[in-house]
């Protein structure tokens, strides 16, 4: 009995060890995390089905060929397909690390995968290390996980001479070390090598941001300093505690010979004797040497970094509330970015002066999730806002679409529609605040008063209340179907002697009937505009329907104002039926909900387009058949914004799959197979 218990507990412990999700290995200061949930993925398509699928076979054949092995199943790679795989990155002022974490099921199989005539890996205990041929990254794995790390050193870090000297690296710039020499020798040489040629890595005025920056500090969150300031001596040995990327304490570079570079004076003296070409070659050589050192240093860091991930414990991303709250167990894949404000901050220096405008200020973490089920694909996105921002959005989005709009959607015929509703008054009131927030810093810190005045002036000039009566903030664009119209064109006929005669022929053209409408409580301005148009002969009128006489326009556009709604459309029949209340309302419940319940909604119903466009207009029978076949296979495509929840705004995009497919993933595979044929 005891033995059984031991066996059971051993089994449970063992199972527990295997079942450990690799998310624990993602540090809490990760900047971006992407996940593929293997269990959810392979629930939709068994491994066997994948192996036998067109794509699977192609993948296995390709892998077998390129690795000179024989793979019959993706399971042969030794990867644990039932667990999640991750990508994450970490940024700091010296290096950006990109990581892949992949669960291993059978390390021997994975060893075999890597091992080949050309490639070898080292093994220390159960940790194997393989350095990529170009030394840009490594793969390090044990019996349960694989960690792939690639790192790119930031040029701006070594532009700081104090930092670069510490690692025996010199910041080589042509302007500093060689340019003067070149000028001294021959001015034409300067023309041959314009400054821009070699200044590519010296234009980083602002140091990249540190990961520590967050919009709002989260309670109880332990931050792991990304900046390499830990001073304790560290080696590549296993450590029990997580330590930040070892930048300040790597001594291995000492081994690299530091090449003495000519100083500006030396170079100038040499250059007098040698042509500028030589100086340039010398510069290139010196630069290549320094680049080599940087690469070597990066590799040292990467090795230590990967070892820490594999062998030590540290506060994981699971402690990050923003990350954990973004998760959904049903998702196939997901992406989380810690802070849009920080993302912008990290790329902004590249934009120079314009980068100073923090247009992302107030925007926090971003997440996107992909779902696939029996009936559809869905991508759900969420954006975290700062409290003030969220409050502003709540006010702006506190508006529903005019219910009367719904009368003018014909679900049986509609090819697509797009509806939106915002509170114009709230928007105009919040707008100056957004501008101040986004561009305030761009204009400079001593410009606050001016910005304040600008905002007040905006509010003063605009009577928000009055504007919101003219344009209430809701609109609907709908394409209710297609219509044929006869058009004339010039062609030529030839008599018996092939003399050309100009003839006017007619043909039918199919155009979509569109209808655009928006609410207006105060239509005086539009009436004035229409009267102006009539006086200028730009608008003609028939009862209450106005025709816009745009000479260049290939289509006629009609305008009508009725019951506080301004209508635009290209179908006179449709506008007339709205005018005399004979429009046949035929909106489905689903479409009604989609439009009425969301601030923004979009629908494309491809099926209503099948066979409606004459073949000759799509480019012949063959093209038309393909076009219709593709449309017929497409389900509805929807987009909608969700009501703001807490401080998160979110939106969904979904595409229904047609009948006859088991689930969205298998449908996707069949689409790829069809496209490849």
């Amino acid at each position, binding site marked *: 009995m005891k033995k059984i218990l031991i066996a059971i507990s051993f089994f449970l412990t063992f199972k527990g060890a295997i079942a450990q999700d690799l998310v624990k290995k993602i540090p809490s200061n990760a900047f971006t995390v992407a996940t593929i949930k293997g269990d959810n993925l392979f629930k939709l398509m068994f491994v066997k089905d994948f192996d036998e699928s067109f794509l699977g076979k192609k993948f296995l054949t390709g892998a077998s060929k390129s690795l000179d092995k024989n793979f019959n199943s993706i399971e042969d790679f030794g990867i644990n397909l039932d667990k999640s795989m991750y990508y994450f990155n970490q940024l700091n002022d010296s290096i950006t690390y990109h990581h892949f974490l992949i669960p291993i099921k059978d390390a021997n199989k994975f060893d075999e995968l890597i091992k080949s005539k050309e490639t070898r890996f080292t093994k220390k205990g159960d940790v194997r290390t393989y350095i990529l041929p170009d030394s840009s990254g490594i793969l390090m794995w044990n019996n349960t996980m694989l960690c792939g790390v690639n790192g790119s050193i930031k040029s701006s870090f070594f532009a700081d001479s104090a930092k670069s000297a510490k690692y025996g690296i010199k910041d080589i710039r042509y302007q500093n070390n060689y340019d003067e020499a070149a000028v001294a020798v021959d001015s034409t040489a300067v023309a041959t090598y314009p400054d821009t040629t070699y200044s590519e890595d010296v234009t980083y005025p602002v140091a990249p941001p540190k990961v520590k920056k967050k919009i709002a500090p989260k309670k109880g969150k332990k931050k792991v300093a990304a900046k390499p300031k830990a001073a304790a001596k560290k080696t590549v040995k296993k450590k029990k505690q997580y330590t930040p990327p070892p930048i300040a304490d790597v001594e291995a570079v000492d081994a690299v010979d530091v090449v003495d570079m000519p100083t500006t004076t030396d170079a100038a003296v040499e250059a007098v004797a040698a042509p500028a070409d030589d100086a340039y070659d010398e510069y290139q050589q010196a630069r290549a040497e320094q680049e080599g050192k940087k690469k070597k240093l990066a590799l040292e860091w990467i090795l230590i970094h990967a070892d820490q991930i594999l062998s030590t414990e540290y506060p994981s991303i699971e402690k990050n509330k923003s990350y954990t709250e973004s998760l959904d167990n049903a998702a196939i894949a997901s992406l989380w970015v810690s802070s849009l404000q920080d993302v912008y901050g990290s790329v902004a220096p590249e934009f120079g002066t314009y980068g100073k405008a923090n247009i992302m200020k107030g925007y926090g973490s971003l997440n996107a999730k992909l779902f696939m089920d029996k009936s559809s694909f869905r991508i759900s996105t969420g954006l975290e806002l700062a409290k003030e921002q969220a409050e502003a959005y709540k006010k702006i989005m506190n508006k529903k679409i005019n219910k009367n709009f719904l009368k003018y959607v014909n679900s049986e015929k509609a090819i697509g529609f797009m509806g939106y509703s915002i509170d114009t008054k709230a928007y105009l009131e919040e707008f100056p605040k957004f501008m101040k927030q986004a561009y305030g810093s761009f204009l400079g810190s001593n410009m606050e008063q001016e910005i304040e005045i600008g905002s007040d002036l905006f509010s003063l000039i605009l009577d928000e209340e009055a504007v919101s009566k003219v344009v209430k903030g809701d609109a609907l664009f709908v394409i209710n179907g297609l219509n044929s119209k006869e058009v004339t064109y*010039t062609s030529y006929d030839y008599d018996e*002697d*092939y003399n050309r005669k100009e003839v006017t022929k007619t043909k039918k053209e199919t*155009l979509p009937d569109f209808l655009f409408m928006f609410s207006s409580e105060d239509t005086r301005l539009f009436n004035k505009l229409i009267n102006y148009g009539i006086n200028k002969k730009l608008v003609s009128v028939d009862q209450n329907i106005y025709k816009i006489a745009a000479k260049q*326009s290939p289509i006629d556009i009609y305008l009508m104002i009725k019951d506080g709604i301004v209508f635009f459309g*290209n179908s006179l029949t449709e506008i007339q039926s709205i005018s005399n209340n004979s429009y046949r309302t035929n909106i489905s419940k689903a479409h009604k909900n989609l439009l009425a319940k969301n601030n923004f909604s979009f629908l494309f119903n491809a099926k209503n387009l099948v066979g409606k466009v004459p073949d000759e207009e799509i*480019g012949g029978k063959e*093209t038309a058949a393909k076009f219709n076949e593709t449309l017929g296979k497409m389900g509805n495509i929807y987009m909608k914004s969700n009501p703001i929840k807490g401080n998160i705004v979110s939106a969904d995009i979904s595409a229904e799959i047609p009948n006859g497919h088991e689930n969205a993933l298998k449908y996707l595979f069949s689409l790829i197979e069809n496209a490849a044929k």
Partner: protein
Amino acid sequence: MKLKEFYRLLLFIILVPALSSCFQVIEELTLHNDGTGEVILTINLSQSKTKVQSVMLLDSINGYKVPSKQKIQQELNEAVAYLRKSEGISNVKSTSDFNNYIATISFSFKDVSNINNITKNILAQQKIKAPNTSSYNFNKTTKLFSRKYQPVGTAKTEYNKLKSKDKAVFNGATYTSIYRFESPVTNSSNPASNVSKSGKAVMLKSSILDLINGKINVSNQIQLSK
């Protein structure tokens, strides 16, 4: 969004997706017995005018910049100016109709061989590389008119490089050549050509696609009665 921009976007959504168009290229050549003659080149986009009108309202389409009416007129004027300077060419005229999208260029020549380098040079002027694969010749003694045309291999390659939606532009496009003579035609070597009832004109109609793909050759040797 300004109303004009909205309007442009609207047209883009509604009209542009189906961009297959029909256009005609017509080459008419009248040759007198003394070797002089006239040429009228016509490009007619009238059948696709709704689409052309829509495209003209856009700045660019499928990644190509849409030329303005002024730009098209300018190019046409440049071609006319070039022709006026060309050897043996006179009486150069051009017309452009932006309501129906039809443009023509007509001119007289002293000798049919005067035309040979024109197309190539005009294309070169527009920075379009094209090998000289087309030539005309008339032997006054033997009364043999010949049009030599070598399908351009690169045309097919370039065409195949296009995206399918760009290829669609050529669907339904036609090329027609009409040669008129003072003397009756006794033989026209191209089987795709037809001789008129009076026997003094030869017509050849082809789709531009067949021409690009080299399925049809417009080369012809026309023997006139002596």
